């Protein structure tokens, strides 16, 4: 017990600095002597203790869950505490700590011949190397190739090596269309004025993220359909299928404009939410608005004897976003 008391007392004494020896007074001051500023000191001290109070308040608010506007109180307590500390620091910096501006000239050079000596040293150190130009070439090759290696991942931005997604798709003649739960679509599932996303049957969930996999399905009244001649027969009883990937920047087309009353409302349209590229599903996916430069690739459809929707082949054009030369390659028939 006595030891504990001794510890506590000595702790308090140390903390308060009682009996601390003062450093011996120097003969001459370096910092100019200014009179103490009691009021600024008091203000800074008050601010520091208020900051401590707010910080304690944060702990209290944190502990008491039942308070209303809990988050706001936490933020206010912490913010005010930091604000008080900052204010105290400003007062200390501006009013209490002695500051002065001094201009000092550069010192005179201490070792005048040293620079020439270093140049000479470097030159003489390389004396033993006889094939200097070859060395420079080696260094250049190593550094340059390393730089190219660092730049190589940038190739992933464009299709230079991985072009198979752009030229081939998982769609084949006879592939059934399934929904996100792998349930095959029947033609009767597809209703007018709604739109559906479909994937080729038998692809894994990961492969559905390939550019060529997802398609968007809509059913249009036969009277509205006006497919261009080269796409004749691509629809199945008014159901048309297009790549879900916008030909502009490769976003997923997730909006369908389905007019309730055709005569005085906009035509049906597939719309990409990224830049509002708008495609006309009745007209072979032609661009009617927005930055897309070419129409949506269309997937030919058929209905089998059991009523399931099947692909009649691959898309008529490359899927995915457009870049220079995209139209050079044709998908293999």
């Amino acid at each position, binding site marked *: 017990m006595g030891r504990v008391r001794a510890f506590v007392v000595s702790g308090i004494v140390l903390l308060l600095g009682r009996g601390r020896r003062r450093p011996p007074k120097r003969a001459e001051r370096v910092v100019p002597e200014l009179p103490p500023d009691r009021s600024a000191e008091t203000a800074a001290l008050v601010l520091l203790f208020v900051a401590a109070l707010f910080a304690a308040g944060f702990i209290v608010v944190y502990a008491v869950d039942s308070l209303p506007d809990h988050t706001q109180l936490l933020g206010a307590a912490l913010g005010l505490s930091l604000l008080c500390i900052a204010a105290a620091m400003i007062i200390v910096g501006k009013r209490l700590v002695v500051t002065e501006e001094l*201009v000092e000239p550069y010192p005179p050079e201490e070792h005048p011949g040293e620079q020439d000596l270093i140049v000479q040293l470097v030159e003489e150190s390389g004396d033993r190397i006889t094939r200097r130009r070859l060395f420079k070439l080696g260094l250049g090759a190593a550094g340059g190739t390393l730089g190219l290696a660092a730049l190589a991942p940038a190739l992933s931005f464009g299709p230079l090596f991985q072009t198979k997604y752009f030229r081939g798709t998982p769609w084949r003649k006879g592939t059934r269309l399934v929904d996100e739960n792998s349930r095959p679509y029947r033609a009767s599932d597809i*209703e007018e*004025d709604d739109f559906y996303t479909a994937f080729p049957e038998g692809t894994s969930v990961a492969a559905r993220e390939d550019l060529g996999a997802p398609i968007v399905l809509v059913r249009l009244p036969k009277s509205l359909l006006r497919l261009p001649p080269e796409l004749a027969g691509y629809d199945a009883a008014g159901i048309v299928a297009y790549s879900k990937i916008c030909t502009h920047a490769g976003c997923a087309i997730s909006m369908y404009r*389905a007019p*309730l009353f055709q005569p*005085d409302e906009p035509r049906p349209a597939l719309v990409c939410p990224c830049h*509002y590229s708008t495609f006309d599903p009745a007209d072979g996916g032609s661009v009617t608005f927005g930055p897309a430069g070419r129409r949506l690739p269309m997937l030919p459809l058929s209905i089998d004897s059991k009523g399931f929707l099947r692909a009649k082949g691959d898309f008529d054009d490359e899927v995915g976003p457009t870049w220079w030369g995209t139209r050079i390659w044709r998908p293999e028939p």
Partner: protein
Amino acid sequence: MKRHASIALSVAVAALSSAQGKQLYGQYCVSCHGANGQGVAHGRTIGGAPQRIQEQQTGIGPSLRGVGALAADFYLRTGYMPLHRVGDQPRRARVLFDEAQIRALVAYIASLKKGPPIPKPRPDRGSLSEGLHLFTDHCAGCHQVVAQGGVVSGALPPPLESATDVQIAEAVRIGPYVMPRFTAKAITDRQLDSIVRYVDWVKHPDNRGGWAIGDIGPVPEGLVTWFLAAALLVAICVVVGRRLRHG
């Protein structure tokens, strides 16, 4: 006997209401939707009327036969109809009719041909998380994930903050203007309950930070903070700091 009497009475009230509805229909709706609601395909010039622009325009409109009480209730209670100008997107506006008139008109439209009744969504039966999932799938593309509305080419998807539970359910089944229509096959009534529950929740989300800034999303909210905080810090630096004098 008593039951027969009450049935007879309700039939009589419905008939009376329907008769009043027919009269209102003739006053406000007939020029665009045609006599007996069969629609007007080839427009003819119509004049001004309440809540319509006061100039001559060509009246055309879809058939109302078979749209049922559902569509009539939706369009009248949102103020979508009467339309300000033929061909415009219907927008939320002052409701022109009082409760009795709406009931009468709805009864008349419903009596034209058998159609869907007014839905009765039960958001308490729905699940909020399923609602978020379904809303993201089917609705957020146009209405934004917090149902604040947006822009599509050719139309302005409205914000849903003033849409009632019944109106949300009706809109899903109708697909007003260029909105897709979702049948009970695409979105079941139970799923619709979840969607309604989600939209109800999103009208008053728990804003833990306190200041929602219009629920425009975390990135713009963060930007607002940065611009306010950065400006404040620069201002404080200017006040506190002092320029060095170069001698």
